[in-house]
């Protein structure tokens, strides 16, 4: 590579990345949202954008594979259209109900001292219970590589 290519390549490799999972219905539980591959990553935020309202009394929950919970437990996902949820990334912190504007990290994550997590290759998996999710939701994960070949892609 030429000098400019090297500079651009290094910036590309070192930058904080936002990977977006397109707005869509969620029709199965569990639903893999993102796949971490190739090496470890540092995740700064995971957020949901509820585009169409969730009107049924479903609950939801996200984990790394089936092992590491990113929130305390299944939590009411009822939400108005065009609202946001910040995942706390911590098993000790509950989800906070969606709102048009919502602190990130969530206030409960910050209170628990969690402003990011490291993650080994795995899937970020959404589960839900009680009913189907009747709205549409986009997800964004904000992350950095901790290894040159690390990647996160939407499933």
């Amino acid at each position: 590579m030429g000098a400019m290519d090297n500079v651009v390549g290094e910036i590309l490799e070192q930058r904080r990345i936002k990977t977006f999972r397109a707005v869509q219905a969620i029709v199965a539980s569990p639903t893999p949202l993102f796949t971490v591959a190739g090496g470890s990553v540092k995740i700064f935020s995971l957020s949901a954008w509820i585009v169409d309202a969730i009107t049924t009394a479903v609950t939801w929950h996200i984990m790394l594979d089936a092992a590491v919970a990113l929130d305390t437990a299944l939590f009411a996902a009822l939400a108005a259209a065009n609202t946001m949820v910040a995942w706390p990334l911590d098993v000790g912190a509950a989800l906070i109900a969606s709102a048009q504007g919502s602190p990130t990290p969530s206030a409960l994550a910050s209170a628990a001292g969690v402003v990011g997590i490291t993650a080994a290759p795995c899937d970020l998996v959404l589960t839900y219970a009680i009913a189907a999710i009747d709205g549409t939701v986009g997800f964004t994960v904000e992350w950095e590589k901790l290894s040159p070949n690390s990647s996160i892609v939407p499933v």
Partner: protein
Amino acid sequence: MGMKADLDAIWLSKRTKTWRTPALYLVADTPIDLFTIAGGPVKIHALTAYLEAAITTAVTWHFILGAATLLDAALFAAIGNADETVAVPLANVALIAPALGGPSPSILATAAEVYGILAAPDVITLNLGGAADIDGLTSFCLEWERLSPAASVVPSP
């Protein structure tokens, strides 16, 4: 990836500052649209006011996202000297009086554990209280990142 694709990826993921040019604001125009978020959600890191000229009257101000999300606790005296800044806390905590320099996030925001917010598409408005207008030129800067490729923030007309 080629160079163009690399630069596009860097561009889309960068932290952006959108600046609203200095203006005077009138009570009669309240609520005043400051910034419009469109196309997808964003992460807002800071909203800062810069008093380019002194605000000498007892106007109060207040910032809101959309219809209901308070970016500060309440109407607050906006009196300030020229060349001072205000860090809007982005949470339901009080604004801190303008100063030549001040923490960002504000110390009341960090005390409330708020370092930034997620925002769905809508408008950030300035609401003025009392009878007076803002008589000093004031500019605003919003520091933000895309959470979706099509997300944008522009100064509202």
